[in-house]
């Protein structure tokens, strides 16, 4: 009798313990980071945003009582290493969500994540990832499980075109302005090339032959000489800030008379002092509030920043945090309706309409995803850098471009 009771108690305790363990089972999240390699200048800022935001969420009690367990892999911007990391995650942890990075690896993984039903939130904002059904004629393969926070590269570039058009008219320019796309021959700089070039043509620009310069910083005087000779009025820089700084400096030395505009990863508060005078006047898209902006969500950002020592953060940090916060909200919605699985998180994201995560008011742009359309936002904030000399600069918000949500723009 005694013995059987002991047994029963032990069994009950074991069951209790087991269920307790099950409740505290962490939510695995893969995190692909570029802390080294050609895109590390912006990769470190964004990756820190991802890490801090997850740490902060855990400190605040996690999601549905469970903590986020982050599995970070620094892949040096090499697509094969990203695939290897992906295989390792799926075989060991089966994460419902992965926070990704570059365009080459994200686009390579599109079919994998669709097959394994894992929500992939990338830091690649390639327009190719916006078509979940593959209906668009521009889409190579449907991307049902791909999401990203912020305007797509193409929308960012379109906003640059639209700003350039106004700029040309306000300056009283004569004839057709000349537009040139500059970037490496790599999926990331190439992503907005075709769609944005077409948009520029429609807006009355003459589009010149693209100029190639590498993603790794180097001596780009030859490219600047070609740029000077081409007589371009607006040059779109499609690389990340590290390589852009070298290009701006080289072009300053060569003495080009061009208005530079760039991609969302092309310029930030860290690039401004490094580029110095050469970076004066560059115009670029911004996808979230700037550090220190007078918005309610900035309090949360400051608290998140404390997770790794605090202090001012560059633009990309906010986008990293926003990406994690949209993931958090989707996971919470998924947990309410059932389990936190890839398909449930996807459904939750696709149910969001003009959604801003709680605590991020004014920081993250409102996003809308639907099962047919993963172009989360069409708003692009346009900023300009003003160099004042002696390490002093300011980023001025010029305008917010609101692009139409055209069906034929899906998928590129």
């Amino acid at each position, binding site marked *: 009798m005694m013995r059987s009771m002991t047994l029963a108690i032990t069994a009950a305790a074991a069951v209790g313990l087991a269920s307790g363990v099950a409740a505290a089972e962490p939510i695995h999240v893969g995190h692909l980071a570029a802390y080294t390699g050609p895109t590390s200048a912006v990769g470190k800022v964004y990756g820190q945003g991802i890490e801090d935001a997850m740490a902060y969420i855990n400190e605040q009690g996690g999601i549905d009582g469970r903590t986020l367990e982050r599995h970070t892999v620094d892949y040096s911007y090499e*697509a*094969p290493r990203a*695939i*290897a990391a992906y*295989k*390792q995650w799926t075989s060991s942890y089966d994460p419902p969500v992965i926070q990704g990075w570059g365009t*080459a690896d994200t*686009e390579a993984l599109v079919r994998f994540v669709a097959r394994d039903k894992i929500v992939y939130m990338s830091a690649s904002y390639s327009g190719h990832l916006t078509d979940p059904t593959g209906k668009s004629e521009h889409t190579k393969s449907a991307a049902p499980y791909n999401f990203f926070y912020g305007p797509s590269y193409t929308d960012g570039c379109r906003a640059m075109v639209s700003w350039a058009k106004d700029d040309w008219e306000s300056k009283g320019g004569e004839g057709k302005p000349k537009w040139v796309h500059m970037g490496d021959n790599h999926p990331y700089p190439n992503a907005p090339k075709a769609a944005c070039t077409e948009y520029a043509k429609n807006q009355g620009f003459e589009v010149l032959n693209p100029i190639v310069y590498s993603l790794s910083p180097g001596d780009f005087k030859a490219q600047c000489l070609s740029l000077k000779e081409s007589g371009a009025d607006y040059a779109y820089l499609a690389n990340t800030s590290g390589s852009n700084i070298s290009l701006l400096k080289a072009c300053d030395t060569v003495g080009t008379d061009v208005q530079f505009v760039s991609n969302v990863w092309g310029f930030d508060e860290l690039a401004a002092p490094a580029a110095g005078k050469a970076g004066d006047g560059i115009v670029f898209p911004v996808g979230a509030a700037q550090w220190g902006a007078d918005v309610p969500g900035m309090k949360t950002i400051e608290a998140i920043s404390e997770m790794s020592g605090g202090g001012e953060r560059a633009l990309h940090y906010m986008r990293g945090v926003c990406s994690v916060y949209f993931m958090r909200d989707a996971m919470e919605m998924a947990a309410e309706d059932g389990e936190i699985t890839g398909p449930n998180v996807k459904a939750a994201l696709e149910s969001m309409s003009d959604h801003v995560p709680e605590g991020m008011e004014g920081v993250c742009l409102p996003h809308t995803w639907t099962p047919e359309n993963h172009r989360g936002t069409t708003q692009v904030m346009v900023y300009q850098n003003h160099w004042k000399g002696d390490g002093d600069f300011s980023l001025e918000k010029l305008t917010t471009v609101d692009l139409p949500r055209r069906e034929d723009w899906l998928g590129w």
Partner: protein
Amino acid sequence: MALSADSMRCGEFRTSYRADTTIFPTPMSRNFAIAGVLVLVLAPLFLNAYYLNLLIQIGYYGIAALGLNILVGFSGQISLGHAAFFGFGAFASAWLNNTTGLPVILCIPLAGVMTTAVGMIVGVPAARIKGLYLAIATLAAQFILEDFFNRAAWFTGGSSGALADPMSLFGYTFSTDQSYFYLVLAFVVVMYLLGANLLRSRDGRAFVAVRDHYLSAEIMGINLTKYRILAFGVSSFYAGIGGALFAHYLGFVSAEGFTILLSIQFLGMIIIGGLGSVMGTLMGTAFMVLLPEVMDGTAGVVSQFFPGFSQGLAYLKEMAVGLAIVLFLIFEPDGLAHRWKLIKAYWKLYPFSY
């Protein structure tokens, strides 16, 4: 008591050329090889995906490295473009599979054949130049092919890379590490047996003759041009097969994986393993694949005592590979294969190892 074939020997008792050129030097070594393969067949039952991944890496790199060893260790030439051939095989297999729809099991050897053709073209200068000059010629091939991978969108998908479907046979898909391990193991066994067999054939002996003294070889009637180019062809075939296995394992091929750095790593594998040794090639490959992982583990343990140590890990890994090559060149220029022989001899002669 008569000496049976299986008992341990204390000297060389070969009395015919046939006995001197068996694939395995002793019945014991043959039995060990068979037992090794059998143990590996059981490995997926006990090992998790992480260890299987390492074994698979050793497999496809090992096949490619054996190709390089045939070129460098056996025929005495040099190639700094082996990674480009490895990459060509990967792209070729993916391209064949994606465009013609041929089953992957056929695409892999066909990719090997295509790579052989490219390798023989690259090997043409080898007919006339050698040493450092040949090294530079193959270096050029490395860069030309790398650029080709980036631009030939019809073949490689350009800078976006190409997807390679997993292999399927009779409706069964080799998409897990467990199943793919068996595929790679089968290829390793076949390719290594072929390699070992090649070296006891007429052509294999010609390679060695060309390496040891090309003038004497020519006087003996060996066609130098033919054998030098053939060595490049065979070496590229191995690289192509290795690359194709890599492509269908990863499921994705892109140009950035096949840089000069990988070519140097292949050279590192065969130098550490032992130039001119089939078994050594596999040992060297295992060493190069496992070294960074062991460094990882060690750094993890050390960083518990010295926090902040893991920060420098990325650099340490790269340095460790360089250091390993330098140390091997100084202390064991004949590679792991030689060290293994010494160990065997020590046990064989124990306790009279003077």
